């Protein structure tokens, strides 16, 4: 970018101007007329199908007019959700296939309700995740790969993943979706098991992932980061030989067998496996996990129940304290580390996680770093960042806002336009009076970036270009979860 940054004061001074009806006058000495990056370099453009958008949903598109070091303009799409203008609520979903299996955002949103008129009105991809390989002994080789969430994931109060430890040991950022808006903060989970035999409570490590091997981030201080050259070039592999992992009833993938990762030994332990009924009563307990390493047997979490797997001392603890007929009490606490308060995991709570808060209290978050996962070559030969971006935030009106920054959608899927921005530049672009954002979280981006809007006639429009290539065409990526505005109330026809 060649446009100079605006002074911080300009944000504060102009944050509400575009939205305000006011008789106040700005004092020349403390305000600036310097345009924002958005105003200087972008122009508002038409939104295809705008007249067909459902009530409560407003979409504004901006197209880059000053291309600087690019050859094609990028597209910024801004969706504002007004929960007072229509009966809708903000939610997240892990898809119709349940947790542990990736699906496209389109499939996830379509699975929210079997009734077309109650499909979500707008949605984007959600939190960070790592795809996982299928175990070689799983019978159905065409089964979609499984995944691990990076950070806290919750739908309807059900926790699907422990928090990341974070650089300061206080977790990583997530958006707690409740009361119709996202609240962005650092989140930590505290997970424990209390057996009915009177023994002491013990912490367990995570939920719905391969025991002994975490991906993407350390969950606790026991997780050791493994160098990429030791794990076949995989990024972000963490090993802990002594773990207990919980599997929830909405985990629809077979629970792990030993030896999922040929480069890691800490997930090789045959370990111990316990099945819990709805009340925590142990209904099965045996050595071995997932039907055994060399067996083609697939083990699933029973409906309404849960499964615990232990490796190393974790397996030993389960063997000694989770005996058949006994009871385990599972405690799962979610803490807002910014304010040191617990967030009760009730049925109205959803959480999606990411590492970076872009805006906090109306300004670019001080700690926001400048990073990029995928670069291309700009018009002058210097690098440009082509990471597509997605943000979840709130604006001065207290409304939820979804924003995507991508290349332009193409006529067909044989070609694509992949583009985005460096992380800090993304935060700076959002920091403007025109958008009036107060808080914003950077969601998963790159090939995961997907924005879908519904029309008032019930059809849907995917308005972000697919950038993953499969079978010669570009397709939208299957992702871990999605954030959407859905129908929360409706009139039911008289029977």
């Amino acid at each position, binding site marked *: 970018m060649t446009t100079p940054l605006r002074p911080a*004061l300009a944000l*504060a*001074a102009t*944050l*509400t101007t575009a*939205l*305000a*009806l*006011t*008789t*106040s*006058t*700005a*004092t020349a*000495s*403390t*305000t600036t007329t310097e345009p924002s990056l958005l105003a200087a370099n972008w122009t508002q453009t038409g939104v295809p199908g705008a007249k067909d958008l459902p009530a409560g949903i407003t979409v504004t598109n901006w197209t880059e007019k000053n291309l600087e070091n690019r050859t094609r303009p990028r597209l910024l799409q801004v969706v504002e959700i007004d*929960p*007072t*203008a*229509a*009966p*809708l*609520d903000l*939610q997240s979903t892990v898809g119709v296939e349940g947790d542990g299996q990736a699906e496209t955002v389109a499939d996830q949103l379509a699975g929210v309700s079997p009734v077309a008129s109650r499909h979500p009105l707008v949605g984007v991809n959600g939190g960070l995740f790592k795809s996982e390989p299928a175990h070689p002994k799983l019978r159905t080789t065409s089964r979609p790969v499984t995944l691990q969430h990076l950070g806290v994931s919750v739908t*309807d*109060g059900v926790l699907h993943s422990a928090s990341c430890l974070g650089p300061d040991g206080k977790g990583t950022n997530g958006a707690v979706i*409740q*009361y*119709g*808006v996202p*609240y*962005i*903060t650092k989140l930590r989970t505290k997970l424990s098991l209390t057996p009915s035999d009177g023994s002491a409570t013990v912490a367990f490590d995570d939920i719905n992932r391969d025991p002994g091997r975490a991906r993407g981030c350390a969950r606790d201080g026991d997780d050791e980061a493994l160098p990429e050259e030791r794990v076949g070039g995989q990024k972000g592999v963490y090993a802990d030989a002594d773990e207990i992992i919980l599997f929830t009833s909405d985990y629809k993938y077979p629970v792990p067998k030993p030896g999922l990762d040929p480069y890691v030994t800490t997930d090789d332990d045959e370990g111990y496996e316990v099945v819990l009924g709805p009340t925590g009563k142990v209904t099965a307990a045996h050595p071995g996990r997932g039907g055994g390493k060399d067996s083609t047997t697939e083990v699933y979490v029973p409906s309404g129940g849960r499964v615990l797997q232990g490796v190393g001392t974790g397996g030993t603890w389960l063997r000694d304290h989770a005996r058949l007929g006994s009871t385990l009490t599972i405690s799962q606490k979610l803490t*807002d580390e*910014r*304010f040191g*308060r617990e967030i*009760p995991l*009730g*049925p*109205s709570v959803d959480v999606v996680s990411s590492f970076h808060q872009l805006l906090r*209290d*109306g300004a670019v978050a001080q700690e926001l770093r400048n990073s990029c996962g995928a670069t291309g070559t700009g018009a002058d030969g210097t690098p440009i960042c082509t990471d597509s971006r997605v943000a979840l935030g*709130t604006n*001065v*009106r*207290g*409304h939820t806002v979804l924003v995507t920054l991508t290349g332009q959608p193409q006529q067909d899927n044989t070609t694509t336009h992949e583009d985005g921005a460096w992380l800090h530049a993304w935060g700076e672009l959002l920091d403007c009076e025109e958008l009036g954002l*107060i*808080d914003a979280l950077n969601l998963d981006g790159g090939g995961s970036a997907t924005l879908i809007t519904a029309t008032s006639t019930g059809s849907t429009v995917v308005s972000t270009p697919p950038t993953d290539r499969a079978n010669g065409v570009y397709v939208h990526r299957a992702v871990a979860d999605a954030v959407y505005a859905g*129908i*929360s*109330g*409706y*009139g*039911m*026809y*008289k*029977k």
Partner: protein
Amino acid sequence: MNIIRTSTRIGVRRGSLFAVLLALLGTALLTLPGKADAAAFPDCPAGRFCLYDGSGGTGTRTDVTEGAKAERDAGTILSVKNNTRMWACVYGRPEYGGGLQTVRPTHGDEYVVGGTRWMVGSYKLVPARALCFTGYERCQDTEVCTFAERNGRGAMTVFDKPDTGPSTHDHGNSYGPEVPSASVFNQTGKHLCFYPTATYQGTWRQGSTTYGAYVVLRGQSVTVPAPFAGTFRSHELVDGTSECQ
């Protein structure tokens, strides 16, 4: 509609009188912060939200801590200083109803400007500004809550257990027009079916369409639209919406 004023701006003066006039007109508004600045209110301790019954941090000071709330204030507050890390939400009516003014962390505000007073009816401190715009957080797990204003604001009615009388269903509640229903939060694990009569029956008509129930899905909040808003007289909790009458 609410009067909405933000303290996020710097170096601008508000049009308080205009804001009040628009409040009376019921017009949504974002106005500008008070003249109070960081240098004022020097006696307000760190980590406290200070409420004064005099202008400019004068008079009697009352301190509350981060996360504090008052759903009904005595109406004596004339100025405030927010020395917490949270946002202060200040409402024109009790129970988080009426107009809304927000005070960002470390800032202050005045409620008498140009001789015009803005009454403080209630307040709360929240970790993010967007949470000022909703009052749903008052509704606890397992409860059904209805509200007098949109977005969970204003007077709240809580249903935490079903009626057991012979004229009611053992899994629902019936009531009169005193129960508000501009918005609803269903904090239970079941779906919620509302009806326009106290006998779990009745219909609504909208054009040529006849509705027999208004559904609020489990865990969901909703600002109730016409023709349903304000008309609920009974409700029941169900496992599937096909169970609605």
